[in-house]
Every structure is written in C-alpha cells, then in structure tokens.
C-alpha cells in the first residue's frame, strides 16, 4: 500500500438485535462502501482486549457507538486512555482499549468517539427506532465528511459530548 496520510479505523460496535444498540454497526455498514485507501471499517458486538492489537496498526481510530444520553443527533469527542475496571464484563470501553494499546503495543493512535443518540434499547429483536434512524442519517453524513476532511480535533470542539448541543449539520446527498 502506498497510501500517504493517516491510516484511519472506523470501529462501530453494538448489538444489531437490540434496538438502537445497533447504531454503531449500522453506521459502519453504510460507510464501508466508501472505504478507500487509508480507511478501514470494522464492526463487532462489543470492544474487547484484542482490539488493542488492532488499534496499534492505525494512526486514528473513531469508535462509533449508540449513546443512551447526551446531545442529539450525535456528538464527537476525544477518547482518553483509561484504567477503569469493569467488574465482570468481557467487554471493554474505548478508553480501556486505547489504554491497553498504548501500554502493551506502544500505540500512538489518536482516538475519538462518535456517539449517536439512541432512545430504545428494548427487547431482543427490536430494530432501530425512527428517531435513531434520523440521527444515524445525520451521523453518517458527518462521518463521510469527517473521514475525507480529517479535521478531527476541530470536530470535537464543535460537537463535543459536553457542548450541550449536537451536530446541526444537514445530511449530505447520498454518494
């Protein structure tokens, strides 16, 4: 590969069988056809420790997950390496995975999170709720632009989780 520029991983996670929890994989599925040199799309039910090894291969990672709270339609922010311990989970948080990637593999990856506001994390088998679908469309438009323009730090200032407002951009036409 002769790609010049950062290698970017967009990693959506969540369970598509549990309502709006599937927002992360849904975004990645829609973004994947656009994947080009330097952009890799991955999805899984959840993050786990072995993702630390994967992260170490990239310059930038964007975790995409459903957000049960926070601004709608989505927010975009930094992920800080974390040492927090989950009591008994086989899953890991983005911060934990980034922390492990740095600790174990010396990774220098810059990490961000795209949280898409969801509303119904209901019973097994539920599909995305209508409001979540609307948020997904806006988040997808943002993600398409973001992976092209790559002004990630600037986006955190605009759409940070604590900004009290979500993105107000309009969806772009389908590619």
């Amino acid at each position, binding site marked *: 590969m002769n790609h010049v520029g950062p290698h970017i991983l967009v990693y959506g996670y969540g369970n598509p069988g*549990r309502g709006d929890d599937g927002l992360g994989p849904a975004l990645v599925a829609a973004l994947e056809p656009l994947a080009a040199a330097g952009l890799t799309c991955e999805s899984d039910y959840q993050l786990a420790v072995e993702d630390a090894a994967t992260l170490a291969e990239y310059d930038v990672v964007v975790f995409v997950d459903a*957000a049960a709270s926070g601004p709608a339609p989505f927010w975009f922010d930094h992920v800080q390496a974390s040492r927090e311990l989950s009591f008994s989970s086989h899953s890991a948080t983005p911060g934990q995975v980034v922390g492990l990637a740095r600790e174990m593999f010396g990774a220098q990856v810059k990490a961000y999170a795209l949280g898409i506001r969801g509303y119904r994390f209901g019973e097994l088998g539920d599909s995305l709720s209508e409001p979540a679908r609307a948020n997904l469309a806006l988040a997808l438009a943002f993600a398409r632009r973001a992976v092209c323009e790559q002004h990630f730090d600037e986006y955190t200032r605009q759409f940070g989780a604590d900004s009290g407002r979500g993105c107000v951009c309009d969806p772009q036409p389908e590619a």
Partner: protein
Amino acid sequence: MSVIKRVVIEPVTRVEGHGKVTILLDESGKVVQARLHVVEFRGFERFIQGRLFWEVPVLVQRLCGICPVSHHLAAAKAMDIIVGGEKLTPTAEKLRRLMHYGQMYQSHALHFFHLASPDLLFGFDADPAIRNVIGVAAKYPELAVQAVMMRKYGQEIIKATAGKKIHGTGAIPGGVNKNLSPAERDVLLKDVDQQMTWAKSAVKIAREYTTAHLKELLPFGSFESNHLSLVRADGAMDLYHGNLRAVDAQGKKIFDQIDYRKYVDFIAEDVRDWSYMKFPFIKKLGPESGWYRVGPLARLNTADFIDTPAAETARKEFRAVTGGKTNNVTMAYHWARMVELLHSIEKIQALLNDKDLQGSDLVVKGERREEGVGVIEAPRGTLFHHYRVDKNDQVVMGNLIVSTTHNNEPMNRAVSKVAQDHLSGVEITEGLLNRIEVAIRAYDPCLSCATHALGQMALDVSVVDVEGKMLAQKSRG
C-alpha cells in the same frame, strides 16, 4: 492544543447487567444470607415465536455479544434434530468442533488474564486502581501481550469457521455451510505451536498460584455442591456433545449418561420472590439440595478423563490436590478453566491437521421432527436450547437455560460464604467488596444474556437488617 476530556460512552445492552448484592443480617447481626440480584433476560419467547427454524442459529447470536458462538451451536444442534440431521458428516462435526474450541480458547484466555489474573497477581486487597488488566500490562507486559494474542487467535478461528464476527452463519440445521480452505487452515496452523506453549504456561501459572495459596483459597467462598455437565459415552470430557452426568459433593453419580433431549425429566427450575433469575435443580433431589454447579470446575469433577495428553496430565494434577475426590473449592474454577484452555488448543491443533476439514459433504437431512433440544458445554457451563416447530417451519416455543442461570444458587452461596467470613459489623469495607468481586468472578458470570439492564456492570453491595432497613451501602464499577 485541544483540551482532552474524559469521554464516557453510555454503555448499553452489550455490557453486562448490574451486579447487586444484598447481605441480610439476623437480629444478632449475623449474616444469614447474601443475595446476588440478577434480572433474568426476558423477551426471548416473544422474539423467537413465529421465526423460521432455519434462521434461529443466526438469530440467537443476538442474545449475547460475549458468547454468540455457544448460542449459535446449541441452536444449530437443536435444529439438527428438527431436520433429522443430528448425525452430522465428519466434515460438519469437526468444523463445528473447531469453532467451539476456538470460542472456548478465546473466552477462557480472556477471563483468566483480563479478569482473574489481576486478583491473583496483585492479591485480593490490592488497590482496584492497580488490580486491573492495565495494571497487569504495566507490571507483566509479556503476559498481557500473550493474553491478547491468545484471545485474538481464538477469534480468528471463529471468523474462519463462522464466516464473520457478527451473526456468523457457519452452522446450519444438519451441518455447516462451508469447509475450511487450505489457505485458512495454513494461517491458523502457523501460530498453533506458539499458542500451545502459552496455554501450557497458563496452566502452570494457575496451578502454582492455587497450590501456593491453598490455605487461603480452600475456604474462600467454598461449599460442597453437586456438579453437572455433558460427558462422552466413555466418560471423557466432551465440550461439544455427550450425555448428562451429575455427581454429588463426594463424587457419587446422581445420574449418568442421560440423553439431554430428556432434560425436563431430570432438571427443574425454582423461582424465588426476590429474583427474576430462576434456580435450576436436579428434580429427584428437590430445590433444597438438588442445586448444582456447571462450568470448568464441574466438568473436571464429572469427567473420568480428558482425551488429549497434556490436558489429561493437567487434570490429574488438579485432581491430586483433593486426593482424587470432588473439588468443591470455588477458586479452583480458575485452574480448571486453564486445563480446559489447554485441552481446547490440543483439540484445535489436531483438527487443523485433519483433512476432513477440507471435505465437501457438509449437510445431512432425514426425518422431519417438530421438537429439538440442543445442549453444549459453553465456556461458562452447560447451555440448553429447546424448540418446538410447527408444520409451517415456524418456531412455536423456545426455552433456554443458560450457564449463568445454572450457577445462580452457587454464586449466591459463594457470596454468602464470603460475607459470613469477612463482614464485621455492618461496615462494607474495601476488603469485603474486593472479596465479593473475586468470588463472583470465579464463576465467570455472563449476565448479558441473563439480563437486560442498562448500564455498565457495577457492583452494589447493601447490608440489610431483619426488617429490611438498609444499614450500609457501597458501590464500585
């Protein structure tokens, strides 16, 4: 330069449920019971009814992001019976076994190194800020990297056999939908020797830790119990298929070689007003004394032998600690888990060298039936899937008993024992909280298919008096 803020993504359903423990005291302040509250997963019946039966092995993976392969295979085994295809072709059975051993390998490696090793390496009283996987990575970097690569290897096996990470489709009613190509096999074979070395090293760590700390571990959260698992017809450990065997705390067989399709004749489920999760028990012993443990410890207690050489040697060492008798020590789960880890990689190595995996005879079908039961030994224990299907191929009934539900009573007993031994007065000390965590972790509970609670798995512990008044409360997580 931008300001770095701490970002928390609200965890949702893939994360396990809330671990809430209530310790009940009597009038004299003595611990009479501790209750681990788990909200049992609900909605499965409604979700599954009306679905076409051949979709079920894929659909049930939505139950759990932690062990989707176990649900996938248990459902496929049930549907094998529906299509009259339970006698799989050699290629199909071996591919499913490879998938299953891959799942077992990655799950056990993750649990031991990610969740349990911080407790073992740093001690139960170590600061939680250090007693975690990143603490392990800082102090034992080689071990931490090894753990990640072991987990990754198991995941690669799953991907190669199930087709993809999410909603894998490898197992179908009556067989599998693909074989393992020579290219896929060669990639996996390349690393298998290294994985074997690491697995042997993991058994050594678990064995040396347990034998060096026997005095502390023997009473820790321990109690006598029955044990249940599948075993092969000759009594060997078999994680994919077999018949049901249950032994008591002394190793005496309660029942043996029971066809698991008749499980309802031997196992029932008790309900208690304070918990949504059921309490399974052996029918003939009743709910008071018929409860049992499942999972690695139970499997090493029920099996007569293991049919792979290194794991059999490890099993003998494990059994020698209790003089060949049943091992009822809660913390022995960790050692037992590593023996199974070694067994799994031995099986993986043998299967990868088996040319049947490149066979093309993938599916069998026979007499159509309306009811199917599939049972598998999942990483955490015995997993039951039971379905009825109508003439239109639609599921009209589905019932699951997941491993964590089998271990419901034992987990409550373990927490009770820890509370009895370590609660002084009504104060919930850090030491008590640590030990409750350690005791529950030994069972490797997977609450995400047993619960549907929002929020990260935190541990809430409350002390309640005889009138239900809360005397103390503490949380972590």
